[in-house]
Each structure stands twice: as C-alpha cells, then as structure tokens.
C-alpha cells in the first residue's frame, strides 16, 4: 500500500520484501525479493563477506528496478 501511494504520486519506488505474493496481489509495481522477514536486507547467519555480497546484490536489484520502465508489474527475485 505504501509502495502504491508513492508510485501514484509519481515517485518510482521499489519494495524489498520477502512474501512476494502479498506485494504482487496488493498491486506493488516494483518488487525485489528480500532475504527474510526479520532481516529483509541482511543475513546475520552468513559469514560477514558473504552477507556483504548478498546485501549488495539485493541493493543492485533494487536500483535496477528503479531504473526500469515498468508496464504492469516488475518482480526481481
């Protein structure tokens, strides 16, 4: 709902979330798959360098979603 209202105002917004069907059903336009519910952009169980790489990859997908022209709905997993 937050994503939609920001997009409605013309601000491209990427939602990083874990349960993709919720965001998809609710009608978010730009969606990127998160790591897990309690830590969407973190993986505390991984060694630091692996966590760093995973976090960066999610952020890169988010930037890609923001720079992509979306027709209906974009989901990057």
């Amino acid at each position, binding site marked *: 709902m937050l994503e939609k209202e*920001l997009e409605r105002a013309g*601000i491209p917004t990427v939602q990083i979330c*874990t349960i993709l069907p919720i965001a998809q059903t*609710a009608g978010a336009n730009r969606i990127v798959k998160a790591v897990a519910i309690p830590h*969407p952009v*973190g993986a505390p169980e991984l060694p630091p360098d692996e966590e760093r790489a995973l976090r960066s990859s999610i952020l890169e997908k988010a930037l890609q979603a923001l720079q992509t*022209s979306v027709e209906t709905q974009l989901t990057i997993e």
Partner: protein
Amino acid sequence: MGKRYRVVHFINQFFAQIGGEEKADLPPSTAAGPVGPGLAFQAALGDAFEIAATLICGDNYFATHGESLLPALIEEIRSYAPDVVIAGPAFNAGRYGPNCGALCAAVQRELGIPAVTGMYCENPGVDLYRRDCYIIETQNSAVGMRRAVPAMSALVKKLLRGQAVSPAGDGYFAKGIKRNVFVEKTGADRAIDMLLAKLAGRPYQSELVFPDFERVPPAPPVRDLTRARLALVTDAGLTDRQNSARLESARATKFLELNIGGMDTLSPERFGSVHGGFDTTAANRNPNVLVPLDLVRGLVRQGRAGGLLDTIYSTTGNGTSLKNAQRFGAEIAAKLRAQQVDAVILTST
C-alpha cells in the same frame, strides 16, 4: 395504514441544486422533506415511507471537518427519529462518496439503524466503508440515477421489513460478514464439483472471493541515478531506541520521521524495531538489516547515486488497516515530493 417509516436523506451541495465547486465549502443545513434525488426516492419508496428531512453539506466542508463534524450531524439526524438513513448516491465522486460512507457508517454505529448509500466500484468510499454500511453498486455518473434509486430503495424496504439481504441478490458491495447457511453438499463435495467443472472448462463460482486491489500506473523510471535524490521508507517498525514517539507494534496509527543526518549507518545504540510481527533480535543487533542506510550511503559516496534524504519514514506494517496504510503512503508521498525526492527504497518485513 401501518407505520410510516421515517427517512433522513443526505446529499451534497450539488445534488441540493445549491451550486458546484464554488459552494463546496457550504456548512451543513437541514431542509424539511425531500430535496433533489430525494423526490425520486420518495416515489420509489412509496407511501409507507416518509423522507422527513434532507441533510445537506458541501463536499469540501464535510471532507475537511470529517470526524469532528460527525457528532453534530448524528445529533441532527437523531432529532428526526429516523428508521433509516439514505445517502447519495455518490456515483464516482471522490469526496461525496467517502462523505456518504463516513456518515452512513456513523449512523449505523451511533444510532443503530440501517444506512444505505450508492457508489461506483472505483469510488474510494467503497473500500473505506463497505464493511460499515450498505453501499449499492451504481454506474459512474449521475446518468445512473435511474437505476440506483430503485436498487437502493428496494434494499431499504427489505432491511426495514427484516427480510434477508445478500450482496449478490441486492446489489451491494460485500460487507465481509460470514453467515451460517445450510447447504445440501459438504465442502469436500462442493470443492470436487468445482474442480471437475474447472477441468472440464465449465463455469464455476468460487466460494472465496479475494479482494480486488486497485492498480496504480507505474511511476516513470529514474533516468540518471547519479543525479537522483533517494529516500528510505520502511514498514519494519524502525524507531529510535526509546521509541519516544510511541510507534505501535501492531495496528499502527502513525508513521515516524527519523533523522539520519550525518549518520553513515544505523547504530543499534540509537535505533531498533518495535514490530510485533517478527523476531526483532537480528534487527536490534544491526538495524541496517531492516533499512540499508550503510549501503545507500556507500552508493552516494561512490557517486553512483545523487543524494539521500536525511529522514527515514517508518511505520509498522502489522495488521495495519488498509485505510491507515493508504493515508500514510499519501502523506509520506507529499512530504517526499516537497523535498524533491526522485526515488524510494522501501523495505518491508
């Protein structure tokens, strides 16, 4: 002749034939008897009903005063001792619809009598108030008055006579109420019937209708990230460690503006999460796993992104009502636009 049911009808300045937008600030007033579409309702309802009064209020006046205005309107309606309240129909009018819905919801809640209005399916008032009053589905403009009045009147008659009503049979938006009914076949049999029909390509009707979320046209993409001003928004329940603004752990009624000016990272000494819907241990150890301030600062430092707003907008997405979530989104959007934000990274738990 039996009892005559008393009706109070609510309409806006336009349908009262007082004026258009220039009269939208009109304060509430009451006229005796039917006015405007009330004449058609009186005819459709027949002699057993009497439109005792018409309550009239300007669209903007109602929308601006909203909640604070309702108690006085309810008392005014109560003074006519009505058996039912009719509002609108509002068709696709974006203020009139929610106004009709708010009034009808308050009437049912405060006066304990049925309240019936009518709206087009995309009127924002439908999703806001369909659970709290009866909203007959109408066409999207006043052209639909000829069909809306009989449908609304028929529902009013049934409600006052204590007859059973249903969304499919009476044309109102489902209110989300579950009712026990007796049927011939068990759920297992019905499910198999449905599956067989689906496999054979025959029509079937699911017994669970999912909400139909409205879609928003996608915003244009960021053209040049190196010049884009980013902002961070989250529904992860991020707060300052003291939770000084008392953000709720569930059913949030507010969002926070957290200042991150001059910070390279979200330190666990200053930030944490009050979200009640997940284990916050990891988040409280390192809040950057909820909102990646550290990474985004890095992007800006490398020159890959133009800048970052010094405020994180945060709320708790845990049983938060659709209505509140939409309001937070709209209010945050207005604040971001005022601060020339070009794109948002929203993290959800």
